[in-house]
């Protein structure tokens, strides 16, 4: 099974303001200091805009950043 470090479903409340379509659960990757983490985030199916929610950015992403910085 493919590994995902984080999965979030947009649940229909998010839409792309440019393409006027709802965001869908899509495949994305976080990259930092030459380390990659596959995740599933809300993505625009048309233009590919990947949305990183505030709670994620200040929570798990920040924690992983700090851990990697001290490697």
């Amino acid at each position, binding site marked *: 099974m493919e590994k995902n470090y984080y999965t979030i479903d947009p649940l229909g409340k*998010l839409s792309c303001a440019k393409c006027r379509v709802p965001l869908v659960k899509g495949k994305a990757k976080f990259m930092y200091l030459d380390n990659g983490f596959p995740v599933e985030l809300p993505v625009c199916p048309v233009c590919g805009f*990947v949305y990183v929610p505030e709670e994620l950015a200040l929570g798990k992403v920040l924690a992983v950043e700090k851990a*990697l910085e001290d490697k």
Partner: protein
Amino acid sequence: MIIEERSSTHVYKQKRMLSKEALAAVESLCVHEQPAYCVAACPLKLDAKALMAAVARGDWAGARGIYEKVTPFTRLLSAGCEAPCESKCRLSSLGDGIEIREIERAVARFGEKAAAKGLLRFKKKKTVALFGSGLFSIFLIGELARKAYPLTVFCAEPDLKSFMARETGFMDGEALAAETETMAALDVDFRFSTNLARMDSLRAGFDVCCASAGAARQAWPGARSDERIMMFREENLVMGCEGGVTAAAFGAKKAALTVDRLAQNLDPCNSRGEEGPCSTKLYTSTEGAERLRKVAAGPEGYDKTGAESEAGRCIQCRCEECIKGCAYLRHYHKFPRILTREIYNNVSIIMGDHMMNKPINACSLCGQCSVTCPNGYDMGEICHIARQNMVATDKMPLAPHEFALMDMLFSNGEAFLCLPQPGYEKCRYVFFPGCQASAVAPETVKAAYKDLCSRLSGGVALMLGCCGAICDWAGRYEMYGETVEFIDEKLRTLGSPEIIAGCPSCKKELSAHEGLRVRGIWELLCELGLPEGAGRFERPAALHDSCGARGDAETQRAVRRLAEMLGCRLVDTDYSGDRSPCCGYGGLTAYANPQVAREMTQSCLQRSGEPYISYCMACRDRFAREGRESRHILELVYGTAAGAPPDISRKRYNRLNLKRELLKELWGQESEKVEREYKLEFTDEALEMMDRRMILESDVYAVMDGLRETGEAVYDSETDYLIARRRLGNVTFWVKYREKEDGYVVHRAYSHRMNVVQRQG
């Protein structure tokens, strides 16, 4: 402008931070772990300090446990010990030393014996014989029983009572009975009424043979003990000594170690460790020691209350001079020696987690410890070397320092100004107010510059920029070198004038450049006198010395003189002058570890409840942010109150605006202003959040500029926010906004450093 992030976590470079010898030399300066004076003086290594602490808190069983580590015969030892510890007690130099021996006697009397351990202890295989009686024999039995040797004691006495009475006449009957009971409880095979002259034949079959001095001489009249190892070498006999209780107990300890070595067929002279009393390099301040007179003991010695009271006088000698003054060391609760070793190990790790990166970057590098430590231990220097090493090996993350470094590039880029006084090509002086002065109190800088121009002859140039302290503190030595070159080059264009520094840290940094002449504006103002319109501050105030002025007596004196001229009534505080702590800005602590920085600021402010006067704008700013009335001395001199502390965006705006205004007012130059086609409004919540999260208004503008180009945004129907993002350098910024007719209202902003990309498959 971008500063490059460290490269992959999978690239491994290594560089030694200090040589082993240099590390050992530095570590040896920290005396925190040195034994207390009383402990060092005891040949038996009794931890008298811990014993006093246990008695003082009424833990009699604990105290007895500590005492029994030395010998099971505590009544005997305490009755006859010569107590070399007492004369070494730190309090004896001020008044009465602690009555350690009397307290030990009380412990031997009142301390409850710990219940025997339930685990069965296996006896050793090697057997030991002991001949003769007396103090040495009693203590040696205690030692060998503890080491679990199968022990046979041969003595001339007919029974245990008379064995115990030998050489112990100084004990009263009750104590003797108690110690006889203790002896009876030990698992020892006694052979009473033995003819000791037969020692040579009786010893056959035992692996190790020991004898009291008397018994040895009975068998070999010329027997002499080598007191270092307690042996009569010719007969391979562990032999006792004459002397009092302390000598006997110490002799028994040495003898027991010799037994150990002989039982293992090893040379008894080797691997003995440190025996007997030792020297100590401990430093202990007696400041605050109050009870200098001893508690009198009754004819029977102390009762429990008396002993607890006397032990409570013990000041628990330890060196904590550094930690007392430093919030950083208190936060991590580590003493410099341990901290240095952990940092050294951290820097030496090639792969894996570097757990000490945070402490390395949290020190303010202020050098206070180098003054408060009796041996001058400079933890800041260690952290600074470690930072440079991390930069050199590409292990230094950019995140803790990026904002400050970008701020420095802003100071020496967009906001930089370097011009001779109008009407001059070359100048005799250049005013260098420092980046924080322009950021926090631009009106003060303006007033100071105009004043200097009007009262000094030969031309006063102006240089608005950063001295390079920021990249120096960050350990970015290459960037620092470039900054030094940049400043020196700019100064040459002004005719290499004498620098008038407005900030003690700038003065310190610039003084390190080769060939520069630097002095503080405060010294000059003392000479020139106060300008017209100088303010008065006729209330009591606490003067906070800047860490940049540590060791700079001239500056410290001049500022006090200036304060006096302004009518200030300065109140004395702990830790002033060279011992002053850092406000939390130094060493970039405020950026790398806001929590520790805050503790530093609060620690500074605890020294006095009065308003604070400082002569570094960073100190002024941090004290004001904590809600204390805080003034920079130049604000008072020029009667220009800087008001409430500005947020991070305002600090940038202030610098830029100061440059624009001065260019216009003094040099008649108009600056270009960027006009945008849209307007941005920020809610109060957004502004507070941005200041906390280190997001500048200019970052938000850049996101919105990007949005207008690409149209890329997300709409969240639940909150009714539109959300735009843009990657700027090493950081992705996200802005939550709502549209309005002529622009946007920003409600929230956040950022992350990770780069996010879409992936296929």
